[in-house]
């Protein structure tokens, strides 16, 4: 085991823009995604989801469907193979939706009740649509509001305390000269990866083989081994190209259904989710309501920071969107109190979605800080600088590198922030009111134990094997660059093979920890290999392989506040006649560690900011109280930002590194979205003088707020809440 002792300062591939290794395959259509790998004798499965929101299945009338052309089987709770769901996986217990067809209960609309398998997808689809499922219904409750009688406070979130307390919040609020006490709301949001979930399962020599679209093949293999009571060595999961993930591509009903059907039929079975099905079986971001209370001295110095959030979970399973935690590491205040509470409803279980917690949490807190800046008459950047902490505000722990102030300075310079007139509602461009806003962003930095193998081949090339995932992040390319530098060769001599669970234990593409976790392991193995090669001797025919495992080196890291940072700026124009909000430009300046590949990193940061724009103005899944199901569960009913919505967006970074990570990586997958929606909402206030505290900032909300008594003018507001008001 080698240890990380120094940074890699030598010039090399890391830090240089490199087009994606698989880029040519992606622009020519040659890259094959999960549903596109050919299998002989393939059968097609089609899920059938419940049409009622609560009750039980009393009959699945398989007879007529089994007589339809090509139909091979109908799996349901009366005949499906048993799976084990009482386990704790590497990220906790499974979402109960993967316990496919294990009982007759229907806990929400869109719960899987059957899988129809046929020779062709057309036959499977028609049979699935023809299948009669009879239900006994019960009253359901899908209405989310923070005063819900069933609201409760979870103990912890992913092993961390859910509630943070420092000092006496009420006393500090009472002693504050300036107080902001407002409620904010964000809606239910869906990942909607462009590639729907797809898996093909087959049994091959006693092994369950799954070709899948996921963000962690080892993780999915572990989950499937638990579910089907198999040794991990008897499961192999591969996922070479993934058409987006964002948190929703873990173990889901498609892999379980495909494996069940492959078991029953003893042939390969593919299950692809439809776009509509994705709205109820792959998770989503919980809606939130958030009350933020800030107390400050007249100059804006914070005395009190209170953040109480509410989110939704299903009645089956606890998932916490930890929105209230955003400020814990961001702002110094004499007193802190933050907690996220949950309302369990007859709805699917939410899951991780790009910057879980930070995305909605930053919207509320960064808007509240803008309101505080207004009340204090202090510039929003100056206010934040004034509350910059020396150590973790709640934890008291030292920070790793914290270059947030440099982000503000560089962002302000490039956005010409100094020229900004702080008065709201005063700039007009034809029928448009124009304004600018800013917000801060942060995301935690972490790494998780990972193994890698690097092989020197006799032909002078190198092969890296690691169960990483490239979900569009550019991980394959970044790892190639990291390995090349560590081996002191050019990237074209390095072949990186990823996304095969047989390559061993590795972290998944999640928590902005992928490239950092994988890069660390690749670097250690590559360094050891280089040292062994330096000893001389020919490379044997089977190659020379060095392996690494980062478990020990990561366990030895001291406790610290490790984060990346950013400053987000936006300019918007608001149409006073239609209420339409157009973002004219965005700038994000980040301090996110060493940037391995500037070309793909910029894409990822801009992509995150585009998500922030989309969150601010467009995205909203609406649930119908009467049916308990979504209204318009498709890409027309759920609009996310399209080309015409997205203006010039620039992302750049300041010099930053992480001294512990041997490459200096921090992670950039999520920080781009954090604070972006707040910057836009703050710009809308600057344009119109109206605070919009409920997302998305729809035209009807803008018009309603503009029509309210006393507007336009500072102080008016469209208040937070998940309702459609």
């Amino acid at each position, binding site marked *: 085991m080698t240890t990380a002792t120094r940074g890699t300062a030598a010039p090399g591939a890391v830090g*240089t*823009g*490199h*087009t*994606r290794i*698989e*880029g*040519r*395959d*992606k*622009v*020519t*259509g*040659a890259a*094959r*995604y999960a*549903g*596109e790998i*050919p299998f002989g004798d393939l059968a097609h499965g089609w899920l059938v989801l419940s049409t009622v929101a609560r009750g039980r299945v009393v009959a699945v009338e398989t007879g007529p469907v089994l007589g339809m*052309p090509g139909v091979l089987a109908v799996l349901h709770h009366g005949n499906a193979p048993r799976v084990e769901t009482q386990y704790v996986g590497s990220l906790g217990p499974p979402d109960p939706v993967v316990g496919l067809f294990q009982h007759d209960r229907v806990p929400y609309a869109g719960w899987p009740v059957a899988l129809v398998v046929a020779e*062709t*997808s*057309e036959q499977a689809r028609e049979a699935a649509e023809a299948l009669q499922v009879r239900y006994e219904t019960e009253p359901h409750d899908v209405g989310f509001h923070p005063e819900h009688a069933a609201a409760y406070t979870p103990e912890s979130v992913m092993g961390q305390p859910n509630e943070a307390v420092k000092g006496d919040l009420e006393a500090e609020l009472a002693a504050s000269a300036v107080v902001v006490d407002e409620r904010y709301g964000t809606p239910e949001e869906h990942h*909607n*990866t*462009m*590639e*729907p979930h797809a898996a093909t399962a087959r049994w091959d020599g006693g092994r369950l083989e799954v070709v899948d679209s996921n963000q962690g093949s080892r993780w999915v293999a572990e989950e499937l081994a638990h579910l089907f009571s198999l040794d991990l060595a008897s499961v192999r999961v591969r996922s070479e*190209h993934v*058409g*987006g*993930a*964002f948190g929703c591509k873990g173990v889901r009903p498609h892999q379980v259904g495909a494996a069940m059907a492959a078991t029953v039929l003893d042939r390969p079975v593919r299950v*692809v989710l439809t*776009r509509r099905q994705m709205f109820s079986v792959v998770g989503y971001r919980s809606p939130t309501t958030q009350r933020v209370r800030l107390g400050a001295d007249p100059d804006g110095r914070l005395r009190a920071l209170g953040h109480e959030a509410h989110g939704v979970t299903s009645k089956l399973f606890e998932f916490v969107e930890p929105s209230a935690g955003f400020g814990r590491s961001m702002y110094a205040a004499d007193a802190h109190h933050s907690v996220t509470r949950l309302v369990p409803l007859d709805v699917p279980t939410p899951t991780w979605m790009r910057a879980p917690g930070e995305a909605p949490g930053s919207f509320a807190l960064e808007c509240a800080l803008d309101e505080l800046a207004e009340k204090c008459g202090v510039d929003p950047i100056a206010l934040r600088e004034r509350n910059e902490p020396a150590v973790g505000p709640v934890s008291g722990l030292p920070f790793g590198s914290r270059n947030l102030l440099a982000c503000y300075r560089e962002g302000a310079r490039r956005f010409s922030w100094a020229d900004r007139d702080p008065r709201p509602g005063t700039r007009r461009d034809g029928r448009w009111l124009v304004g600018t806003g800013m917000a801060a962003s942060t995301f935690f930095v972490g790494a998780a134990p990972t193994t890698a193998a690097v092989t020197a081949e006799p032909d002078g090339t190198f092969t890296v094997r690691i169960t990483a995932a490239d*979900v*569009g*992040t*550019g991980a394959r390319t970044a790892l190639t660059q990291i390995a090349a530098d560590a081996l002191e060769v050019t990237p074209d001599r390095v072949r990186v093979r990823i996304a095969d669970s047989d390559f061993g234990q590795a972290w998944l593409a999640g928590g902005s920890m992928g490239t950092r976790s994988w890069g660390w392991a690749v670097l250690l193995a590559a360094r050891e290999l280089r040292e062994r090669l330096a000893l001389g001797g020919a490379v044997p025919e089977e190659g020379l392989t060095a392996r690494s495992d980062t478990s020990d080196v990561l366990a030895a890291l001291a406790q610290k506040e490790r984060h990346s940072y950013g400053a987000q700026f936006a300019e918007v124009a608001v149409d006073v006649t239609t209420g339409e909000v157009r973002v004219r430009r965005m700038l994000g300046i980040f301090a996110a560690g060493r940037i391995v590949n500037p*070309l*793909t990193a*910029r*894409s*990822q940061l*801009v*992509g*995150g*900011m*585009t998500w922030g724009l*989309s969150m601010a103005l467009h995205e909203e899944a609406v649930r119908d109280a009467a049916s308990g199901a979504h209204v318009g569960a*498709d*890409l*027309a009913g759920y609009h*996310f*930002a*399209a*080309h*015409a919505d*997205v203006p*010039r967006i620039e992302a750049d970074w300041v010099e930053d590194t992480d001294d512990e990570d041997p490459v200096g990586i921090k992670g950039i997958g999520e920080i781009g979205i954090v604070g972006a929606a707040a910057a836009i909402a703050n710009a809308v206030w600057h344009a119109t003088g109206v605070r919009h505290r409920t997302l998305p900032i729809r035209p009807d909300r803008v018009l309603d707020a503009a029509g309210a008594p006393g507007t336009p003018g500072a102080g008016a507001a469209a208040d937070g809440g998940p309702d459609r008001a």
Partner: protein
Amino acid sequence: MAPAPTATHSVVTLTVNGEKHTLPVDHRTTLLDVLRERLDLTGTKKGCDQGQCGACTVLVDGRRAVSCLQLAVAAEGREITTIEGVAEGDRLHPVQQAFLDLDGFQCGYCTPGQICSALAVLDEHAAGWPSAATDDVRPEAGVPPLTPEEIRERMSGNLCRCGAYVSIVRAVERAAAADRDASAADAPGGGDDIPADASKEAVA
């Protein structure tokens, strides 16, 4: 496969990327599913299967169409071009090359549809077709300038969830510039969205 033709199947001849394929198809089968499941042309993607995302965009007789909303039996006699037919052998089409160089994609799943759409956008624009972003739509106004706004408007049928729009627009701008004047292709500041150092950053 049932013998054809039957009440549920017909034998059709499809011309895809210049190659003729004669095969029996289920009448319910979309052009998209024939391409992907029968002809092994999986470059055309299925993102929604209901005409809302553009991932399945192909060219039918030179015009862009979402292949998920077209039945295969209705495509007989048409010239179909998929992403697999865009490059000339090993030489990428300028639109493909621009997507690659400027990182006009991330996960890559919407990319074939974006590229096919971009090809049609360039043709539609060159033919003088106006869009909702065109200021002066009078025929005598001629071909409108292909501004970033024009590109965004014309490309809006192709969703990208990774949020690669900024780079896609730059790629289409660069390809359009290459179309107009090969020598202008590498000129810095060719559009307001192209930072001067954008192409230098990439090592092909």
